[in-house]
């Protein structure tokens, strides 16, 4: 029993390594920056299914029962539509972009930054949402967002989302924190036991905190930082580094660190918090008063898709209530389809993951890729591009 659990965790670890990679990607930029994608047309009607479809996905998004016989939402799709699914698991957004450029794939589950890059380069085509019947049930606050649409044109179907929470050990961290200051200005109190997410995108978490605490920096969007704002965020993280015990990028590592007490406070995902609590760790996770960062993935169709009908069938299938519930529960994220909440095996699932909680998601700044044109619409300054974030992250860790 215990061993099975370990295996599950290992599988989940693999998933979240993948999600880590989403971190190195981000969301889309707003059209205010003048992103001008090639003028591509979405299909107005679908033809006959082509008999197969080639997908690029994060681990855990396209499960046909080969990893776990009980986890299978592909076989029924193949039976119903006659589209044989060939899926390729990508380890990072960059790999997704590279694979999409080959033109051999029909659809991809892109994270924020990959999605924008794919749109900008013309590798992803606009999506006619009328051809995806289940799209109508997708939560309104996931539709037409900066990372899945440009200038009012939809480029994909939302898959699911999650927030980066603040988790703490309820026995060792007293009084209970309410703010991210517990891991920044207040971090020395837990010296050596603070943890943080190991990815350059974590710089945005510091920026989000500075947005609330240092108004003179005038940070509007944590993914659009000019040099001065960026330097302030990096300085804050360098200071935090002295108190960090370890950075986590894999799921298993964080669960074990909170269980043993090696980490007592730091960023987490809902699914990690649930797992740690179920294994006996005394932890709580919440969105602090400053809000938090988060991630949201989108299924997009290739501009060069050879099997567009099957791709559309897949888009509709993956956000259909039952399948969306299955994939959300397996992966540990909030489903995109509102109807999915009635289909989860754990009836409490949507409440725990705040699936329908619009107010909750309003406070989440979803991952975007920082680019030189500021995503917040400023034109008088240049923002620090993601490549520089990567470099700075190395320097922060020292």
């Amino acid at each position, binding site marked *: 029993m215990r061993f099975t659990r370990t295996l599950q965790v290992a599988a989940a670890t693999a998933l979240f390594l993948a999600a880590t*990679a989403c971190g*190195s990607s981000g969301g889309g930029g707003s059209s205010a920056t003048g992103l001008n994608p090639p003028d591509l047309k979405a299909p107005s009607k679908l033809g006959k299914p082509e008999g197969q479809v080639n997908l690029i996905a994060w681990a855990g998004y396209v499960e046909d029962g080969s990893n776990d016989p009980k986890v299978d939402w592909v076989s029924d799709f193949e039976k119903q539509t006659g589209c044989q699914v060939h899926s390729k698991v990508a380890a*990072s957004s*960059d*790999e997704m*972009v590279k694979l999409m450029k080959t033109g051999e794939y029909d659809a991809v589950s892109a994270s924020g930054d990959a999605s924008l*890059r794919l749109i900008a*380069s013309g590798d992803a085509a606009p999506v006619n949402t009328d051809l995806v019947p289940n799209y109508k049930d997708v939560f309104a606050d996931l539709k037409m967002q900066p990372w899945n649409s440009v200038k009012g044109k939809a480029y994909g179907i939302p898959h699911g989302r999650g927030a980066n929470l603040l988790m703490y050990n309820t026995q060792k961290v007293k009084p209970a924190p309410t703010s991210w200051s517990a891991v920044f200005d207040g971090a020395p109190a837990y010296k*050596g036991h603070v943890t943080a997410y190991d990815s350059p995108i974590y710089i945005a978490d510091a920026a989000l905190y500075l947005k609330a605490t240092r108004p003179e920096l005038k940070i509007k969007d944590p993914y659009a930082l000019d040099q001065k704002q960026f330097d302030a965020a990096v300085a804050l993280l360098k200071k935090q*580094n002295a108190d*960090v*015990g*370890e*950075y986590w*990028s894999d799921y298993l*590592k964080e669960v*074990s*660190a909170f269980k*043993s*007490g*090696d980490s007592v406070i730091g960023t987490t995902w809902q699914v990690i918090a649930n797992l740690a609590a179920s294994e006996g760790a005394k932890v709580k996770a919440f969105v602090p008063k400053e809000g938090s960062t988060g991630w949201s993935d989108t299924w997009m169709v290739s501009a060069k898709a050879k099997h567009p009908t099957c791709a559309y069938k897949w888009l509709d299938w993956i956000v259909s209530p039952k399948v969306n519930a299955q994939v959300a529960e397996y992966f540990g994220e909030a489903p995109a389809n509102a109807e999915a909440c009635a289909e989860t095996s754990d009836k409490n699932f949507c409440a725990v993951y705040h699936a329908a909680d619009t107010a909750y998601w309003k406070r989440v700044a979803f991952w975007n890729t920082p*680019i*030189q044109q500021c995503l917040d619409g400023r034109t008088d300054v240049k923002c620090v*591009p*993601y*490549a*520089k974030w*990567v470099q700075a*992250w*190395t*320097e922060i*860790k*020292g």
Partner: protein
Amino acid sequence: MTAAAQTAEAAGRRSTGTVRRLAGMLHRRPRLRLSLLLTAPLLWLAVLYLGSLTVLFVSAFWTTNSFTSEVVKVWSADNFRALLTTPVYRQVILRSIGVALAVTVLCAVIAFPLAFYTARVARPRWRPLLVVAILTPLWASYLVKVYAWRLILSQGGLADWMLRPFGLSGPGFGLPAAVLTLTYLWLPYMILPIHTALEQLPDNLVDASADLGARPGRTFRSVVLPMVLPSVAAGSIFTFSLSLGDYITVQIVGGKTQLIGNLVYSNIELNLPMAAALGTVPVVVVVLYLLAMRRTGALSSL
């Protein structure tokens, strides 16, 4: 039908003739024989091994497009300049070399007495069993062993529990934990060459030293150590190069520590040329180390 059979027979004769002629030619020309025999493995070495090293080195001179992360094949030495001038890279490189040296020294210090016991003190019939015991950890998966160390070193883990009676606590996750775990991982590679060298040490040399009036300490210093030192150096080649390239152990038990491998890993997707430049560092360091060790005669006792 008959015609077909005849043709087939003729073809068979012809092919036997060809084989015989070829065999004769190969017999007369040993050099040709040798070069045919060696072509495949040499191609393997040159193309796959040296070739990939060359590609690594060449791609270190390219750059990337900062938006798409695609490799731009424009020559520039920027990556190497960054490597030498950025403080964080210098720091990480020095740290990695320091870890590799520390692991090597620790392995040598622990392995020597162990090998001395297995090779000279233990009863001869037990020796093979002891060697097997030393090798057993190599049968377990690397990851399992490292995660076991994560449990041992975690708060309230085995290390804490054992040190508590002395009023101490375990090292926790960090650089010391990484050095400790790497030492554990590579120890068998150090014990084996030393064990072999000690086993082959002729007894009569030790006896002669004692007959000439040397005390055990002096015998060890003047007779045993000089003869075993090349094997220690040989073992150190394994421990040093394996530690220098490792990046998984340090991720699991190293806390927030970064080594060269981690930098390569974090650059591999977004900045391949920089990762390549970083990757050449351990290659250069290991080549220098090998050259230094060659002077001790270690390479002939591998």
